[in-house]
Structures are given as C-alpha cells and as structure tokens.
C-alpha cells in the first residue's frame, strides 16, 4: 500500500517522458525552497517560488501541482505573493486559487490554478509563497502497536518539486519532531542536522521531475481527530453570544492492540506514550460561564487561565485516548456581544471564528450553526474559503415564528481554517421588545382570568349558596321597589295637601280643605300600614343589611314630613277660620316650611340612592 503509489508515479513519469509533454507556458521557476513541518499530526508545506517568465508572452496564471495521494488530502491551501523588494517585504496578498483539470495533465496529479495579480511580462520575476496543509499523510507504521511501544509514522514525499515548469534550483528541508528518527531515504545531497533533514539543492531539473523519499520517525504529537464537530453560535441582542460545541473525538494514530493496563500506565516509568490526555482550547478573551460536560454529567478535570488576549482552557477527557479509542463531550461558553457584533451600512454583522478553538485538532466534519434572533432578515455569509451553506429554523425561548439558523458545513478542517467569518443580517431594535411584551401579555391574561373567575357563577345545583343569595337579593330588590312606590304615593298625597292649601288661599273654603286633610290622613295611615311588613322583611333579610338602615331613615323622615305638613295644614286652616291676615299665617308657618323643604330634599336624595342599587 505504501509503495504502490510511489511505483505508480514512477511509471507515470516514464510515460510522460516518452510522450511529448505539451510546453506549459514558458515560465521557469528559478528558485524553489520547500519546508515541510511534521511536528504535529498535520503536514504543513511552505514553499517559496521565484517565477521567471522566460517566454515571449505574458502570463496571468500559474499552475500548482501536487501528486494525487497528497492532493486528495489537501485540507488548506493559500497562495500569497510578497510585494516590494528587499528584506522589508512582508506584505502578503492572498491570491485566488482554484482546482482545475486542464487537458494534458495526467490523472495522478491534482492541479490548482493561481490567478496572478497582474500579468507577468517577459523577463519579470515574481515571488510566490504557498502554504498547504495535508491531513492523513502521516501514516502510522506499524499500524497496530501495544501500550508500551512508541508511535512511529511515515511520510512519503518527493525530494524534487513536481511541477509542470522547469526548475532551476530547489531545496527541501523536513522538520521532524525532537524524537527518534527511524530511517530516511538517502539521496545525494542529503544532510541530517539535529532533527531536520535537508535535501538539495538540486539544479536544473526538467518538468515533472520526481524522486520519492520516505521518512520514518517517531511522532509525539496527539493525533486527535474530531470525527464530527457541531458548533452552535447563538446570538442574543440582550448582550450575549453563546457558543456550544459537541465533539466526537477519536485517536487516529496507530491502533492499540492487546490490553490496556492502568498499572503500567501510571507506573514509573509510565508507558503509553502514544496516548494523549490533554486538549488545549484557546477561547476569545472575556469568555464566561464555561462548562465542560458529556452525557453522564459534568467533567471536572479541566483548568482555565484567562488574560486580556485569550482564555485558555485545558481539558482532560475522562480517560486517556489510545489509538482507535474515542470519546465525546460538550463545551459551552458565553461571549460578550460587543466584541463580536458590529453595525455597518444599515446591516449588522457577526464577526466570529469559524473552526474549533482547540489547537492541533483536525475536524473531519464540521457543522457550524449560527442562530440569529427572531426577526432577522437578509441573511448572508462571507467566508474566506468555500463552505456549504443552508438555512433552518430553530424554536427556542419565547419564540413565535422561530429563529433563522445559517448552517455552514465543511469537511477536513485544520487549525489554519480558524479564521473569522462574517454573517450579515438586518434587525430592528423594536423586535427586541416583543419578548417582554410576550411575558407581560401572559401575566395579563392570567390576571384577567382571575377577575372573570371571581365574578362568574359556575354552580349547577339550586341549593348552592350563590343561587340562594341571588334569590334573596332579588326579593330585597322587589321589596325596595314597593317601598319606593309607597313613598312616592305618600309624596303625591303631600302634594295634594299643598294643592288644597293653595285652593284655600284662593277660594277661602276651609271646609273642603278640612275634608281633604281628613282623607289624606286616612290614606297615609293605610300606606304606613303597608310599609310595616315590608320594613320587617327588609330588617330580617341578611343581604339587605346595608340598605335597611337607609330605608328606615327614609320612612322616619317621611313620617316626620307627614306630621309637619299636617301641622302646617292645621295652622293654616285655623288661621283662615280665625280670619287672621295672610302675613300672620305666613310667619307662623315659616319655620315649619323651612323644615318641610329640607326634609323633602333629604327624602329625594335617599330615593335616588335606593334607585341606584
């Protein structure tokens, strides 16, 4: 398996050498420096290429090639060219790179085309810096080890730079971790300095030159790979961005065969160097409320250190991870809103990092869900690399229509991808008010229900207390009505008396007056008799307890009025009999008249009051 790809390529090169390969635009690479860093589980290749246009046409694109077994595992590729001359050039501008499939290039090479910023004219030179990160190219060899063995991995590469252009001078240096080096291919011009292997410089190589090398060495890096990472970023305009990450971590190094002995693992010297225990995460500064738990519960083996630039979280899973072992956990933390949400040109945007905050973690499948508050519109995402986008709805606290979720998916993510992405959307601050309004209306409905409940009568049987009370109340009202009628009749009789007095003053006929008085008197006596039982009833009934004193008062006043009127009538009639002057009569009855009018007024008031009940 390890040799077949190399053999493939050799055969292929022969084929190419035999066939006339097309002249691939006359660029010449005057100097190529390659540095491969394999101290972690990712192979990072940094190339500095000096490109010279030795042809006659100007060229605007550059072709970058990798052998297929590397190209399939390419996780991250960025090409930059440094502007300015001399040692002070550190102005890297990223160029756009695309994977292409041009004709004339054999299948076992993957090709990327770089668009140059301006066309390269004849005789010009350009310096390109390429950074490429490969996952899964450090193959563990042997593939199964026992607990006490060291972890050996193998890297296959080419000492000469495989490119469609001719190369004038090139060199390669591989930086290995500070550990044992088992073996490496020894071509000419090979030097081992400390833990670095240098191949080259090789001069004047034709196109597609390739010489395979294999380096077998011990790696102390943690081969932690997250098979699936779901990262949920929830934005709340009340001041918080909550990030929740669900990890499924597996150790992708050499698998453990045999048993795991805890005694050996913790003995002196401890065995199990191929396992890793710690994972370090770098969170943004001012992260708060950090939790680390899994399905069982909280995991307490973690440490946090924060300063003004970052928050470092060192977590230890429940058991050390050997090759092939896996674990799962959840990390969550909150971030202050003003560090990540900004407003520009009428839109708001969230500027947050894309990948996992853990250093040196490769993610095979990364799903980032950005949950925006309810009522966000015109959502768009800007990322520095390609991702797959989709939208969903999530229902959370106090939601009516749900919150829009932007789902970004990417495979094969390395820490180089941990750059910032921007999510743009529109939101008006009025929508923030809908949440307290919902709570308020909830409480309002509760209280209205209370009010309605206390006022409504749900009783079914006829002997319940409310029903009886209602009946009694009706009776009381009826009685009151009758009392009112009687009082009105009394008042009418009073009016008749007054009328007869006026007749007397007109005609002087006091006999008819006396007769009228007598009849009124008898009628009034009848009416008061009728009043008595009603009054008795009102006094006994409990629900009229507030009203009966008023009614009593009314009747008493009415009686008083009756007497006064009678007295006045008698006085007036006597006065007429004695033939005294009108003035005398007036004086005598003046005080009485006053009292009469006052009493009348009070009676009217009481009648009104009873009316209102």
């Amino acid at each position, binding site marked *: 398996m390890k040799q077949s790809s190399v053999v493939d390529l050799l055969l292929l090169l022969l084929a190419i050498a035999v066939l006339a390969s097309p002249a691939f635009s006359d660029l010449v690479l005057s100097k190529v420096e390659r540095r491969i860093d394999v101290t972690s589980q990712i192979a990072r290749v940094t190339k500095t290429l000096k490109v010279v246009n030795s042809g006659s046409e100007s060229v605007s694109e550059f072709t970058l090639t990798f052998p297929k077994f590397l190209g399939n595992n390419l996780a991250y590729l960025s090409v930059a060219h440094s502007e300015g001359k001399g040692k002070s050039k550190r102005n890297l501008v990223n160029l756009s790179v695309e994977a292409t499939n041009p004709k004339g290039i054999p299948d076992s090479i993957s090709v990327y085309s770089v668009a140059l910023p301006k066309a390269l004219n004849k005789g010009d030179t350009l310096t390109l810096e390429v950074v490429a990160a490969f996952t899964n190219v450090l193959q563990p060899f042997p593939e199964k080890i026992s607990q006490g063995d060291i972890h050996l991995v193998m890297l296959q590469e080419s000492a000469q730079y495989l490119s469609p252009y001719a190369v004038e001078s090139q060199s390669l240096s591989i930086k290995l971790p500070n550990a044992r080096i088992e073996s490496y291919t020894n071509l000419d011009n090979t030097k081992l300095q400390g833990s670095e292997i240098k191949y080259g410089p090789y001069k004047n190589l034709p196109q597609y030159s390739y010489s395979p090398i294999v380096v077998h060495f011990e790696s102390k890096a943690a081969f932690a790979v997250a098979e699936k990472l779901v990262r949920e970023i*929830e934005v*709340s*305009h*009340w*001041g*918080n961005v*909550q990030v929740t990450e669900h990890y499924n971590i597996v150790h992708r190094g050499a698998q453990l065969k045999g048993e795991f002995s805890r005694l050996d693992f913790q003995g002196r010297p401890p065995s199990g160097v191929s396992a890793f225990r710690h994972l370090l995460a770098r969170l943004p500064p001012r992260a708060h*409320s950090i939790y680390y738990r899994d399905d069982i519960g909280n995991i307490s083996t973690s440490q946090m250190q924060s300063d003004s630039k970052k928050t470092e979280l060192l977590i230890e899973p429940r058991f050390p991870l050997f090759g092939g072992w896996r674990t799962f956990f959840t990390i969550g933390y*909150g971030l*202050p*809103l*003003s*560090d990540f*949400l*900004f*407003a*520009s*040109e009428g839109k*708001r*945007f969230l500027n947050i990092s894309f990948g996992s905050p853990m250093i040196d973690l490769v993610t095979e499948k990364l799903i980032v869900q950005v949950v925006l508050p309810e009522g966000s519109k015109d959502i768009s995402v800007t990322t520095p690399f390609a991702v797959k986008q989709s939208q969903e709805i999530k229902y*959370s*606290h*106090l939601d009516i229509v749900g919150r829009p979720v932007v789902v970004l998916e990417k495979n094969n993510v390395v820490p180089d991808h941990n750059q910032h992405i921007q999510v743009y959307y529109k939101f008006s*601050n009025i929508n*923030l008010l809908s*949440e*307290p*309004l919902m*709570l*308020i*209306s*909830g*409480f*309002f409905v*509760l*209280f*209205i229900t*209370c*009010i309605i409940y*206390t*006022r409504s009568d749900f009783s079914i049987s006829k002997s319940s207390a409310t029903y009886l009370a209602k009946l009694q109340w009706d009776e009381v009202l009826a009685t009151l009505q009758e009392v009112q009628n009687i009082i009105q009749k009394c008042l009418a009789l009073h009016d008749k008396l007054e009328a007869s007095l006026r007749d007397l003053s007109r005609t002087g006929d006091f006999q008819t007056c006396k007769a009228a008085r007598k009849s009124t008197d008898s009628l009034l006596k009848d009416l008061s008799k009728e009043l008595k039982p009603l009054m008795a009833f009102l006094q006994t009934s409990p629900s009229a307890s507030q009203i009966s004193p008023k009614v009593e008062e009314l009747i008493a006043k009415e009686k008083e009025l009756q007497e006064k009127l009678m007295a006045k009538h008698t006085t007036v009639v006597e006065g007429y009999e004695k033939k005294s002057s009108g003035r005398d009569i007036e004086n005598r009855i003046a005080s009485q008249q006053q009292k009469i009018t006052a009493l009348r007024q009070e009676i009217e008031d009481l009648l009104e009051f009873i009316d209102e009940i």
Partner: protein
Amino acid sequence: MAAKPIASPIPVLMYPTLSVFTLAIGLVITAIFFIYEATSSRKNCSLGKELATATGFGSLFLLLASGVYV
C-alpha cells in the same frame, strides 16, 4: 466603513439589580391586586394592566440575569 460594536440596550452588569427591583415591585402590586379582588366587587381592569407590566418586566430580567438570554 467603520464598524461600531453593538451592545445590549441596557447595560448587562445591571441585569441582576434590575431584576430584583422590578420583580419586587411586580410582586407587591400583584399582592395588592389579589387582596383588592377578594374584598371588593367592582370592575378594576386598568389595575390589571399595570401590574401585569410590572410582573412581566420583572420576570424578563430575572430570566436574563440567570443566564437564559432569551
């Protein structure tokens, strides 16, 4: 194209204080309402609105202060 950071309309540090005060006021008014309800027999609709507001805001700040971040 200066981007200015957006923060919450009410300072986050004051959430616990605000929640205590608004909840206290809301609960007092609720108590008054229920006592009034039990002793009288007249329509009191506007009072209901008032106290619903107080309790509503109080419970919102309580939720926010405890980290639910609705």
